[in-house]
């Protein structure tokens, strides 16, 4: 087990997304988890990136500009009544 990668905190912060996305191999993942288990700042950092990702979901509610919406619906009516290309 002496050849297992032992990450520094500075390396851990660069690996968080790889970890969350399942991009690490088994030995890297275990080393990552061992580090985080005993390192409160890295645990804090991991929680921060998770929150960034989760909070972003609340930003998805923009309206469609009314002018664009109207013109898209007009285009749809034209398409519907015109020759359908086939």
């Amino acid at each position, binding site marked *: 087990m002496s050849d297992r990668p032992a990450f*520094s*905190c*500075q*390396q851990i*912060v*660069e690996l*968080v*997304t*790889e970890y969350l*996305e399942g*991009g690490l191999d088994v030995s890297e993942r275990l080393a990552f988890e061992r580090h985080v288990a005993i*390192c*409160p*700042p*890295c*645990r*804090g*950092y991991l*929680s*921060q*990136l*998770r*929150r*960034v*990702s989760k*909070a*972003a*979901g*609340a*930003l*998805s*509610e*923009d*309206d*469609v*500009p009314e002018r*664009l*919406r109207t*013109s*898209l*619906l007009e*285009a*749809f*009516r034209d*398409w*519907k009544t015109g020759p*359908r*290309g*086939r």
Partner: protein
Amino acid sequence: MVEAEGRKKTAGGASEELFVDALRSGDETAFARAVDRFTPAMLRLARVYGLGVDAAEDVVQETWLRVLRSLDQFEGRSSFRTWLFVILGNCARGRSEAERRSVPVSSLESDGIPAVDGSRFFPAEHPRWAGMWTTLVDSWETLPDERLLAREARDRFREAIDALPARYAAVFVLRDVEGWSSDEVCVVLDLSPENQRVLLHRARTRLRAALEEYLGSDRA
């Protein structure tokens, strides 16, 4: 209809087949719903190709027209959404090349900015703590949603996304704002899974830094 929704014949599932059939038959309500659902993300993605607001709206309009004209060729091998956004990407790239503002979404040269500023770690030559944090890092696990999702925080969040390099923003918006899978993002942005993760990481770490600054500044 209930039974139909339980089956998955195409990539997008049976309810999507019904939706595409509705579009083909000229159902304006179905079209309006699709416009409302997809257009905001389409506009954001079009901007990633370096287009201004007006050009992005043109591209979105052109995309929907192309989609309607080629509806009969849609076979459901990908989901409707993937198909829609691949067409959007083609239109946006075409427009952006015509305006000579091409932004290589897949280019991945390092910008040399680390996830966390090096000053927050002990230097590499430190005999005992090389590469370890010199500072505490707050856990955000129990940070109340009201802090992170208050209007001001959200405005700050959006500004920080707008300030990202375009290709980082594209991946972040589709993955974390819109909640797409990594596979779908790779198809639409033509990225390898590895590159997609690198871009997502850079986006998340920069946004984290921006939010940390914001949250720290109103503490005291």
